[in-house]
């Protein structure tokens, strides 16, 4: 396992809900990351965010970690859930709120 994989694995296992994004929740640097933050905030869940723009190793590594080509990426309890499109589809169907409630117990 590469160092990046090891680090990402630790991050997603240390926190219940992790969003890898461009920028920060307060200052997202990309529309897709901004949308992902808004969805999680609407769900009323606490989450850890990782700004990939501050860490080139993670920025590249996260794509192979999940075999997913884009950022943002959401992880719940160590499992890759999807990018912002999937988050939006799940949110609109009520599935994301349900998943958070089941796995983390913090969604409204």
């Amino acid at each position, binding site marked *: 396992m590469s160092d990046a994989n090891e680090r990402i694995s630790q991050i997603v296992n240390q926190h219940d809900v992790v969003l890898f994004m461009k920028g920060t929740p307060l200052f997202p640097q990309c529309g897709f990351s901004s949308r992902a933050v808004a969805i999680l905030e609407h769900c009323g869940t606490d989450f850890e965010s990782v700004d990939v723009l501050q860490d080139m190793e993670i920025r590249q590594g996260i794509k192979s970690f999940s075999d997913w080509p884009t*950022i943002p990426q959401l992880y719940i309890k160590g499992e890759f*859930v999807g990018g912002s*499109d999937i988050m939006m589809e799940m949110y609109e169907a009520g599935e994301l709120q349900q998943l958070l409630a089941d796995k983390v117990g913090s969604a409204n």
Partner: protein
Amino acid sequence: MPAAEIEALIRAALPDAEIRIDDLAGDGDHYRAYVTSGAFAGKSRVQQHKLVYDALGGRMGGELHALQLVTAIPT
């Protein structure tokens, strides 16, 4: 990247697909694609999106930054 090119790549991998591509900003750079294909049956959303990303052959996240994707199974 022209919408027709995106559509051709997706169709080459998913011949049965019904594809609609909206140019969101009218700038040939920000798209939303709706893809309906029988190949998505029984697959998770992540797997469905990966099929489309695979069709785009590594362009996603690089040359193609702003492509929103909505996948569906034919009803």
